[in-house]
C-alpha cells in the first residue's frame, strides 16, 4: 500500500466517524448519502472550519451544538437557480397545470427547496396561470439557514438577467421584473409570491408524510442519495400524493427500479412522473 492509498483509507474511517457523530449527537443521518459527494463536502467543511483533519472537525462539531446550522449549511450546498431547466417548467405548465386547474384547492410540496429560487419560480408561473390563489405550497429543506433566506427572498440582482431569459423559456408571459423590486444591486422578490407558501424544516431521511399533495417537486436532491435512500424517499412521495398525483424531479435523474414500480413517465414532459394507481399493471 502506498502512502497515498493509506491516507485515503484513513480518511474513509474519519468520514465514517463524522457520520456517526452527526447521527448520534444531532440525529442527522447521512449514512445513505452518495459517498463521493459527501466526502467532498466534508473535506470542504474541514477546510472552511480550518480544522485540518476531518477527525478534528468531528471533535469540533461534537462540542459545538451552536454551530450545527453552519455544519448542515455546509453539507447541503444549496446551489439552485431561478427557472433551472426551463423545459421542465414548460412541461409542468403544459401537462400538469391543466390537471391542477380541475381541483378546487391545490397542494404542492417542494422538497429540498434550498434558498427558494425554485419556490419563487413556480409561484410566478402559478400566478400567471391564475392558479396561485387556490394553491397551498409547502417548501421544505433540511437546512434552517437556507429556509431563512428563502423566506427573505433577496437575491443578487446580477442573477436576474439569466433568470429573465430562462423565465421566458419556461413560458413566462409577463416580465420577470414585474415580480421583484431592484435596490442596491439586490432583487427582492414580491412578498405576495409567498403568501400561500409555508417554509418548514423536513428531513427526507427521517421525517414522514405531513400532507396530501397533488404535485411534488424534488429536483436535484435525490442525486445525493444512494439507491436505498432514493427508494425510501420515492415511497414517501407515493404515500403523500393523491391518486394520479405528479412528481417532478431534476433533469436526467434516474429513478431506477423503485421509481418505475411507483411512477410512470408523463409523455412529452421530461422529468415529470405520475403516480401509478394500485391496480395498474407495471
Amino acid at each position, binding site marked *: 500500500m*502506498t502512502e*497515498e*492509498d493509506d491516507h*485515503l483509507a484513513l480518511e474513509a474511517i474519519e468520514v465514517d466517524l463524522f457520520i456517526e457523530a452527526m447521527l448520534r449527537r444531532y440525529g442527522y443521518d447521512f449514512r445513505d448519502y*452518495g*459517498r*463521493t*459527494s459527501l466526502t*467532498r*463536502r466534508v473535506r470542504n467543511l474541514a477546510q472552511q472550519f480550518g480544522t485540518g483533519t476531518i477527525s478534528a472537525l468531528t471533535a469540533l462539531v461534537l462540542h459545538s451544538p451552536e454551530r450545527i446550522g453552519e455544519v448542515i449549511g455546509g453539507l447541503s*450546498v444549496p*446551489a*439552485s437557480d431561478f427557472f433551472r*431547466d426551463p423545459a421542465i417548467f414548460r412541461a409542468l405548465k403544459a401537462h400538469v397545470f391543466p390537471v391542477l386547474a380541475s381541483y378546487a384547492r391545490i397542494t404542492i410540496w417542494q422538497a429540498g427547496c434550498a434558498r427558494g429560487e425554485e419556490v419563487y419560480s413556480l409561484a410566478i408561473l402559478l400566478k400567471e396561470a391564475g392558479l396561485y390563489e387556490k394553491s397551498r405550497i409547502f417548501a421544505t429543506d433540511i437546512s434552517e439557514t437556507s429556509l431563512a433566506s428563502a423566506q427573505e427572498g433577496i437575491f443578487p440582482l446580477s442573477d436576474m438577467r439569466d433568470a429573465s431569459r430562462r423565465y421566458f423559456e419556461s413560458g413566462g408571459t409577463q416580465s420577470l421584473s414585474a415580480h421583484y423590486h431592484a435596490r442596491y444591486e439586490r432583487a427582492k422578490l414580491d412578498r405576495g409570491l409567498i403568501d400561500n407558501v409555508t417554509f418548514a424544516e423536513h428531513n427526507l431521511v427521517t421525517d414522514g408524510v405531513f400532507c396530501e399533495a397533488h404535485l411534488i417537486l424534488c429536483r*436535484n436532491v435525490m*442525486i*445525493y442519495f444512494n*439507491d436505498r435512500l432514493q427508494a425510501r424517499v420515492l415511497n414517501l412521495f407515493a404515500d403523500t400524493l393523491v391518486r394520479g398525483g405528479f412528481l417532478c424531479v*431534476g*433533469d*436526467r*435523474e*434516474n429513478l*431506477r427500479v423503485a421509481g418505475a414500480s411507483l411512477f410512470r413517465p408523463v409523455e412529452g414532459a421530461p422529468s415529470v412522473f405520475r403516480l401509478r394507481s394500485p391496480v395498474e399493471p407495471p
Partner: protein
Amino acid sequence: MTVIVIGSSAGGPQALHDLLPLLKPGLAAPLIIVSHVGENMGDLLTEGLARTCTLPVRIAAERMPVEPGVVHVAPSGYHLLIEPDRRFAYSVDERIRFSRPSIDVLFVSAAEVYRDELVGVVLSGANADGAEGLRTIRRLGGLALVQDPNEAIVPTMPLAAIEQAGADICAPTAILAAHINSYVRP
C-alpha cells in the same frame, strides 16, 4: 482495467474530434469526457462525437455503471463523479472556477476509485481546470497525458496542467491516441 478520463475546454471539441477517431475500434476501456460547453450543449457535442468515432458515445447516465468500450460524456449543468461501486453520480454543487461540470471534480473522484488504473488526459482550454485533478491522478499512481501546448488551439489548460501536475506524456493528439491504444489490452 484501464480507465481514461479526458478534460477539454475552449478549443477542446476540435481536439476531441481529432483524438477519438484514432482510438482502436472495440477499445476495451471506458472513456469519460468532461468538456466545458455552453448550457445544453452536452447533447450536441455527444452527437457530433458519435459521428466521428467508432465507439458508442453517450451522455454518462446518473447511477449507471461506467462501461468499457463506451465514451461517456458529462451532461451540461452537473458535476460528474465516480462512486466507489464504479457508477456515475451527478452533483449540482457550486460551479468551480465558473465551471459545472468541473474537470477537477471528475478527475479527483475517478483517481480515488481507479488509482493506478487511471489515465488522465488534458486537452485544449482557456483556464486551469484539470490541473489539480491531474496532480491527484499522478499522486495516486495513474498516468497524466497532456496535449502539446503548441498544437492546442488554446494552450492555457495544457500549460497549467504541466506546471501544476507535470505530465508523463506531452504530445500532439495523434500520439496521445497511440499511447491510449497501447495501454488497453484487447
